[in-house]
């Protein structure tokens, strides 16, 4: 299900602080966007506003040309999904049951999940490397496994717009790659994907474009290849970046700081 995502002069604020100002983006179906920025600049709040979970301070969000406030809740859930940054499980719910919840908006109020829905959920769990773990309680899964159950639930939900709040959190390199490849496939099939993350290298390698949030209202948007240079990243994160050449091309990494010392750790610690 292909869908475009557009924002018009979107303003995001937390209390009195304006974090993002006049965000106007036009993302055609198939966009693959990495959202980068320091802790607390409003990445999560922006994703929540895009998903309609939270009213923006100003502006509007449209999916497929329709203002999301005009869409019914179920219709919105069929067209747009968001992976929350944290998921907790107070009740003994299994991985399969959690993945199956993705079908909620596709089923009638009184309807039960069919064998077909079950098969969809099993396939999605397997695609996230969780085959054989369907019956495990979510509370007993590791952080990375629980994260992949959340992504499997989104695969089951199958929306056109995919918003992911730090989908790579807790994932080992192998499963990071699995998730990134999955996101690429989704974009290739016409879905629009926006994911927040903290790794400029992965953003450059696996995403088409980047949205940088500075936390004071300013934002930048552009293709990763041109936008993510050393100077821009330095301004974004407040730390110098250097380009390194490797077999996969150029990567941007924080440069070692000259004379950098962490006062609490160097002030007369053991062994000195």
């Amino acid at each position, binding site marked *: 299900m292909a869908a475009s995502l557009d924002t018009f002069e979107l303003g995001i604020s937390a209390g009195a602080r304006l974090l993002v100002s006049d965000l106007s983006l036009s993302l055609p179906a198939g966009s693959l966007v990495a959202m980068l920025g320091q802790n607390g600049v409003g990445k999560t709040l922006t994703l*929540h506003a895009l*998903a309609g*979970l939270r009213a923006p301070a100003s502006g509007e969000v449209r999916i497929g040309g329709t203002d999301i406030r005009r869409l019914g*809740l*179920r*219709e*919105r*859930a*069929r067209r747009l*999904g*968001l992976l*929350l940054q944290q*998921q*907790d499980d*107070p*009740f*003994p*719910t*299994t991985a399969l*049951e*959690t993945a199956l*919840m*993705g079908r*909620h*908006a596709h*089923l009638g*109020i*009184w*309807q*039960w*999940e069919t064998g077909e829905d079950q098969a969809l959920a099993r396939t999605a769990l397997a695609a996230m490397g969780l085959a054989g773990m369907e*019956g495990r*309680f979510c*509370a*007993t899964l590791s952080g990375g496994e629980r994260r992949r159950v959340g992504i499997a639930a989104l695969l089951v*939900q199958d929306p056109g717009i995919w918003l992911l709040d730090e989908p790579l959190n807790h994932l080992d390199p192998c499963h990071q790659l699995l998730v990134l490849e999955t996101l690429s496939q989704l974009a290739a099939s016409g879905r629009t994907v926006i994911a927040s993350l903290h790794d400029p290298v992965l953003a450059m390698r696996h995403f088409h474009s980047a949205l940088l949030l500075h936390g004071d209202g300013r934002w930048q948007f552009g293709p990763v290849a041109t936008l993510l240079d050393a100077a821009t990243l330095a301004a974004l994160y407040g730390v110098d970046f250097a380009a390194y050449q490797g077999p996969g091309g150029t990567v941007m990494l924080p440069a070692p700081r000259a004379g950098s010392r962490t006062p609490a750790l160097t002030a007369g610690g053991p062994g000195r």
Partner: protein
Amino acid sequence: MRMRPSTLIAILGPAALLGLLLAVSFGSGAVGPREVLALLDGSADDTIRQVVLELRLPRALAAFGTGAALALAGALMQVLLRNPLADPYILGTSGGAAAFTLAAMLAGASGMFVDAAALAGALASTLLVFALARRGQWTPERLLLTGVVVAAGWSALVSLLLAVAPERNLRGALFWLMGDFAFADDARACLLIAAAGTIGCFALGRALNVLAAGDQQAALLGLPVRGMRIGIYFLTAILTAAAVTTAGTVGFVGLVVPHLVRLLAGADHRIVVPGAALAGGTLLVLADMVARTVLAPRQLPVGAITALVGVPLFLFLLERSQRATI
């Protein structure tokens, strides 16, 4: 190991019938199982008929309805607050209903007005706990502390009311406050409310599962979270009020029973709801039978029995569920 949902219902359904049969077969009088069997094959006299059908059966059905209502109210509160420790007794809902009911009775109200007072008390108490614990997130600690303090407040109010109440009513009032079926002669309203609540929540079981995943997650999956929460909030208050007007404040059914069902058959509310209603009803029928017979002809308050069973059972379940998540 998890039980299949159909297995659990196949056990709980017959267990409920067996519980009711036992409850009408034992009591303080001379009517026992043999007389009840005689009643079933039509050879019993009028006295037996009267004891079984007009005294014991209504009381057993009232106990079943109350237990089902409390267990369902507990399961729903646990979803509402995303906390397996929530329960109308612990969070003060029962206490609010009891305090309002007692106040209404002392003011000379009767019938419908007492029921309305119970509902008002349950609603007021739930609203109070929600409003006070709302700041930020409903953390388990904050919620439980708020509920416990509100419950203590109602308990103090009840003590004040008892202090000014006429002396001849004190023993009855005390028993009622501990949970007692001595005056439960009409089970119809409570049974009807419990049955309607169970069927409705069973039908909305998938939505309850989604709501239990959290407000934001539920909204993202297309659930009208606000409306659903308000509906559940009213339903728990109605269920609690129905239980309190039937039998006073009976504790631990709403806490222990849903917990037990989840441990046995998982957290899908399409099994938790009917399972908790059946198990809660059966538990209270049996507890009331024990309360009537163990020191016969003297009767004990059923709330004391449920607490005596509920406290160790809950501690055991807590310990087991802790181990199950590792």
